[in-house]
């Protein structure tokens, strides 16, 4: 489904990723471990060409990514960062924002389905009326994760999304992101706790990926 071949990323004369190869099949849940600064974020960003690789190619469903098809291909992905974005209006408006984007308008969503999603993370429905900026960082992050998951994309790129959450909530998020069978995901983290719940674990060091061995 997603193939990365010989990917090299050089930033400011520093080689971040070197000849990296990766295959991801449909529905596969992959976790990538690495220390901070190992290039995990760069890897996720370069998959969607938010960082331009110095060489190598990214192939999605037999199509090589290029400036011509990137906009269309990005629509099959969702990227979630480590820190939730800021937003000045209510939580409900924040959750609905991407559904106003033209390409998402066909996706059905209603208050009921939103409340059901919130319940999975033990978030009370009253939160919808609150100002998003008044929530704690952890709550904002969970709302951001819920919002992205409701879009039902084929591949999720998750960049240290649980690093600001407490243990209970990390577990809930992990359970929920792994739930959907057809959903592929690359989950990047430095937390080794939940490795065995993923289909495959890889380690990122010296700019390339290696099978993960517990040491």
């Amino acid at each position, binding site marked *: 489904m997603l193939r990365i071949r010989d990917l090299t990323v050089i930033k400011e004369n520093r080689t971040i990723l070197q000849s990296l190869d990766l295959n991801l099949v449909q529905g596969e849940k992959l976790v990538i471990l690495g220390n901070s600064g190992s290039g995990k974020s760069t890897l996720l960003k370069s998959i969607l060409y*938010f960082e*331009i690789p110095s060489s190598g190619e990214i192939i999605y469903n037999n199509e090589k990514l290029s400036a011509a098809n990137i906009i269309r291909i990005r629509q099959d*992905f*969702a990227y979630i*960062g480590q820190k939730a*974005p800021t937003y000045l209006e209510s939580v409900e408006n924040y959750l609905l924002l991407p559904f106003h984007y*033209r390409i998402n308008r066909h996706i059905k969503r209603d208050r009921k389905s939103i409340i059901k999603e919130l319940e999975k993370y033990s978030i009370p429905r009253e939160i919808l009326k609150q100002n998003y900026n008044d929530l704690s960082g952890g709550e904002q992050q969970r709302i951001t994760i819920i919002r992205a998951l409701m879009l039902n994309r084929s591949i999720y790129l998750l960049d240290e999304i649980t690093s600001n959450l407490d243990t209970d909530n990390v577990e809930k998020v992990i359970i929920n992101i792994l739930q959907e069978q057809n959903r592929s995901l690359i989950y990047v983290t430095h937390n080794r706790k939940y490795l065995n719940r993923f289909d495959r674990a890889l380690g990122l060091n010296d700019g390339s990926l290696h099978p993960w061995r517990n040491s």
Partner: protein
Amino acid sequence: MKGAIDIDISSLILFCLLFIIPVLTFKYLRIRKVGDLIISAIRMIVQLSLVGLYLGYIFKLNDFWINLCWIFIMILIANASIMHQIQLSWKKLSFYTIPAYLITVGFVFLCFLIVFDFKVISNSRYIIPLGGMILGNLLRSNVVGLSRFYTSLRRREIEYIQNISLGATLNEAIKPFVKEAYIAAMAPQIATLATIGLVALPGMMTGQILGGSTPITAIKYQIMIMTAIYRTTSISVLLAIQFSKKSAFEEYLRLNRDIFVK
């Protein structure tokens, strides 16, 4: 009474010597900006004297095309000053921002035709001071608006990326940033609009009253210029963002970091 009473040069110099007060205050509080303070004061005096000199010529010539050239040059200077103050690349963005400012100023002057005949507005005694006030405000509001837009984008690029990756088009993805920049640019003006006249008499009105106009005439001019300024801000900030995004985002909709000077 026709015109304000002229000020004697020697009395003006004497009056300006009182400038020693802020200088002494700076010394007393040990603020290390005495040099900056003196340099700005000298610049103010030199620049205004020069403007006084060549405005004298321009008013005497009173040629429509020369006036237009003058406005155009002022737009170029305003643009350079905006880019310099907010540390954006003059080379990369001016090609887009200058047309944005030209369109704004052109449109605002067209609006003046509702109030004045073309003959009146093309007179240098009208077009030059009105243009100056409009461009001064355009400069201030764009420094706030454009810098807010680009610094927010740079600081919160992840948020922008996230919007794009959730399916937003470029316009959809930058909309929250545009909104924020627009509010920042407009907010000081809304505050001024609401309190104007209560405490401070605005500059244009003061000038008119000193120049011998009746307060009612002065107020009419003030209302006209305030609404013109309001329009200027709202159009110029939005156009400058919309036009400059062609240079600010490159292939793959990535934020082009070359637009930042630092």
